[in-house]
């Protein structure tokens, strides 16, 4: 059984057809070749598959693909600038050592994006709270928190 879906993906309208028993992460990676979204635990524990749906961070491994119809989806591929430069948030992760192996980074960065969109100046506690559903096994979390604080400062100074 297939279903036709129309939604906005990284700012562009998209029409596609997908088997109804696929998850959003399968749709993104297998059908649309957007492999920046990672598959970790597939149980909503690790956050590697985090994407934004209508601005809210969700685990795409738990999100049935049919539910994306009519929604706005942002993946890590949608965050960079139009001239292929990294966004300020991504660059801050590079500058502060918030990336090591990189597997958790797309999910971390999208959780951070959702946080900064609703709270442009988060405290360290608020950052840790917002990242509670994202696991990193390499860097530890200090550099990741630093990265987000750096990004917040840079984004605020742009305004």
């Amino acid at each position: 059984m297939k279903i036709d879906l129309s939604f906005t993906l990284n700012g562009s309208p998209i029409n596609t057809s997908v088997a109804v028993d696929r998850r959003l992460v399968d749709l993104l990676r297998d059908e649309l070749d957007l492999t920046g979204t990672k598959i970790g635990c597939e149980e909503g524990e690790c956050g590697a598959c985090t994407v934004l749906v209508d601005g809210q961070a969700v685990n795409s491994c738990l999100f049935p693909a049919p539910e994306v119809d009519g929604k706005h989806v942002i993946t890590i591929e949608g965050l960079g600038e139009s001239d292929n430069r990294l966004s300020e948030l991504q660059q801050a992760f590079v500058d502060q050592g918030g990336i090591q192996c990189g597997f958790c980074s797309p999910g971390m960065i999208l959780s951070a994006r959702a946080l900064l969109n609703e709270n442009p100046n988060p405290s360290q506690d608020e950052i840790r709270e917002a990242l509670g559903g994202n696991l990193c096994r390499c860097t530890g979390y200090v550099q990741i928190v630093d990265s987000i604080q750096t990004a917040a400062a840079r984004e605020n100074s742009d305004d």
Partner: protein
Amino acid sequence: MTHYDYHRPETVEEVLGLKRVLPAATFIAGGTDLMVRIKNRVLNPPALISLRAVTELGGIEDGEHTRIGALTTIDELCRHPLIAERYPLLAQAARRLGSRQIRNVATLGGNLCNCSPCADTATPLLVYDAQVQLQGPDGSRQVTLAEFFVGPGQTCSSPEEILSQIILPPPPADARTLFMKKGRVKMDLAIASTSVVLVLDGELCQEARLAVGSVAPVALRLPLAESVLAGQKLSSELSAEVARVATTEIAPIGDIRASADYRRQIIEVYLRRSIDQLAGIVQ
């Protein structure tokens, strides 16, 4: 990979109609538990009937009784000013449920329908005397949450019924409230949890409502411990006695997350601490 059909009805009538035609289908709301069970092959439904497009199941209505649509997400509960003001225990428990990604999608109705003894929203709703509305082919009925919880994963609703609303009577006036949850890390399911509501008149405890989670087949109120507390003059000796009585009303099991003894001890400590703190007793 399990294969299933997927239906997205838009009204409760369509939902119930689909279920009549597809009796083996499973309802899905936020799916944060269900999708895991399907992936792990604990469940193998031939079809899912999604409730997410049924707008009449959403929303929070003010009134003499507060009516919360079953599809209300946990994150909405965290942020809604009416919930924070009138039912603070529910807002506090919602904030302790899972990660932000889970809270953005998981629903209040789903948390209750899974009927897990560790459901974070269960103990607050029990102390607020919540009722749930069930809608089925023969109409709707209202039952207390205590009646709704039958056993682990088992509710009193029939397979054709859906939970449509959670109904909260006005909270007791001037109540003091405290929610506590024990987990190893913040995202954990509760090892044990407590919700306490006290109405005080000076040093006298006029009314006491106590509920506990993760320490019996279902989340439950503690009528015996409540009766020891109600009408009495508050003291650290009384809180200790209430907490001790509470441990006789629970039946915890040991599992991968904690032993039965540890759970019993947490309940005793949390209830004593909650009552002391709400009563302003310094230990």
